[in-house]
């Protein structure tokens, strides 16, 4: 709970050149476990800032440090002030693990949290924003997981904050509910709210965030706009070929030999993966498959995504070479190349048929 009778910190907003959040050398340990190991970050006012990283990377600890709910070493400033000195009216928080008081309806919960602030938004408009207006009189316990999470989001925006921390806001929410939360975040951002978003849904972060930081082992290993991170770390576009039957040992090599472009061909779980294929070169790849006598069921072309960046920088990427299928690429290809299931940039090209 807030212990500082905080006056408005607007007077110190400019102390960090308009930044909403600044962290320098942020450290936090729990016994021998280092949760944050010298994090440096800066979030500009009005920005949607995404924080991604594996479980245990320190994301929630960083949110807690920035909201003053855990003690951390280093220099942390929110609107130019220490986190615990910030006017609570300006900050909204949805904790990752949050279970509000029992036996209250969604409407009562929003009323309750709104009642703790000097000024709060109209409860009905908040409920409408999160798509809960129709179920607002049901007790929280009786709501579905997605409705519960949306209600929790409502409690985080009821004070109309300038800075909103959302720690995995769409966990457990179905696609329609996620979209409603996405639209809400976009509206808040359009209105000037700074959003600090953590999520395991890469497509969500890629869609919403102006900039993204990737946290690994308590340190920021990459930060920048999603498109820059993808360009730098995402690898090349790829064409995934689902074969019509099992691949023989030299299938990848035979296809690779017939590709004039010299694109790398490697075996994947379902068939082949050709890296570096531009959309206009898909026809050449199909010709190479035909020439090599390789029958396939379908082709799927995809651009690299934030998920590829995540997998590559966290070292969690799937490697087909570990499936013990000999490939041409395994002998001379890019051993660090990321292979993933693809994001929403994936595009099915054709079913190929039996060629």
């Amino acid at each position, binding site marked *: 709970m807030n*212990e500082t009778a905080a006056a408005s910190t607007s007077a110190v907003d400019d102390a960090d050149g308009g930044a909403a959040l600044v962290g320098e050398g942020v450290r936090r340990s729990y016994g021998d476990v280092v949760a944050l190991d010298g994090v440096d970050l800066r979030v500009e006012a009005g920005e949607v800032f995404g924080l991604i990283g594996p479980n245990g990377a320190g994301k929630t600890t960083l949110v807690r440090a920035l909201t003053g*709910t855990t003690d951390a070493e280093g220099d942390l400033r929110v609107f130019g002030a220490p986190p615990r000195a910030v006017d609570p009216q300006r900050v*909204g928080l949805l904790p990752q693990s*949050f279970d509000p008081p029992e036996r*209250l309806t969604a409407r009562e919960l929003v009323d309750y949290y709104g*009642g703790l602030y000097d000024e709060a938004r109209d409860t009905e408009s908040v409920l409408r924003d999160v798509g809960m207006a129709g179920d607002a009189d049901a007790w929280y316990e009786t709501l579905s997981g997605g409705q519960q999470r949306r209600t929790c989001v409502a409690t985080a925006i009821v004070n109309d904050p300038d800075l909103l921390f959302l720690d995995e806001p769409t966990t457990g929410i179905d696609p329609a509910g996620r979209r409603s939360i996405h639209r809400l975040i976009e509206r808040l951002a359009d209105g000037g709210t700074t959003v600090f978003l953590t999520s395991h849904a890469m497509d969500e972060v890629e869609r919403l965030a102006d900039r993204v930081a990737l946290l690994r082992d308590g340190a920021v290993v990459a930060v920048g706009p999603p498109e820059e991170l993808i360009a730098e770390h995402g690898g090349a576009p790829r064409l995934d070929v689902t074969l019509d039957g099992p691949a023989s040992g030299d299938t990848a090599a035979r296809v690779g030999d017939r590709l004039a472009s010299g694109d790398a061909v490697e075996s994947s779980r379902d068939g082949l993966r050709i890296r570096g294929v531009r959309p206009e070169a898909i026809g050449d790849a199909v010709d190479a498959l035909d020439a090599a006598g390789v029958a396939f069921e379908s082709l799927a072309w995809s651009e690299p995504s934030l998920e590829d960046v995540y997998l590559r920088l966290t070292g969690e990427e799937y490697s087909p070479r570990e499936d013990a299928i000999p490939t041409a690429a395994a002998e001379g290809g890019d051993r660090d190349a990321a292979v993933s299931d693809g994001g929403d940039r994936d595009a099915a090209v054709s079913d190929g048929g039996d060629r």
Partner: protein
Amino acid sequence: MTRVGRIRTEATAAARSFLRRRTAVFFTFFFPVILVVIFGALVRTQPTGGGLFAEPAGYYIPGYLAVVVLFTPLSRVGSEIARHRDGGRFEKLATTPLSRVEWLLAHTLVNVAIIGAASLLIFALVLAVTDAEPVVSPALAVLPVFVAVGVALFCGLGAVLGALTDSQDGVIAASNTVALPLLFLSETFVSPDLLPAWFRPAVAASPLTYFARGTRAVVYEPGPWVGDLAVLSVLAVAFLALGAYAVPRTD
């Protein structure tokens, strides 16, 4: 929102949350009822006139009231803190204007109301099932004050226990461990002459003793009660302050 407004908001939510948990409400009131029925109506005094429950029924009115004044706030506030901590509620509240003092005051008010109602029930039940004859005097009006101050005191202690223990199970075990000796060694059900002489000074160390002495002076044996109320009040402020400090703010 003013401090009073925040406390009212927190207290309203806490009261709704409790009153809608039917089993919690039922057992909060049923627990002292069965105690009164067992010890007030079923247990008989020994033929020799000695031992437990040898005093007139009115002597034990403070004891019956002490059951709810002591046990209920300890377990309720302690459990509430455990639930808040497990549910990430303190993390959320830390970013609101509600302070720890305000949170504890709000929950204390809810407990005062609930335990006030339970005390009224106990008082009526004692009169109905025992031959207790309370002294009716203007001082009787102070009885609710004793109950309220006693509840506040043990809400503070409950907050400390809730902060020290790491689970709801731990809170229940800790509150029973603290409450049981206090209940029987505070001039409630066991009169001081049943205790060894060397132990009697220790009775004065129990906060519940001042509740028992004061309420007994009000309802059974007319006598001075202001000193007991003063001690109880000072202890209540101290325990509330300690409890508010102990309420978790961070992880």
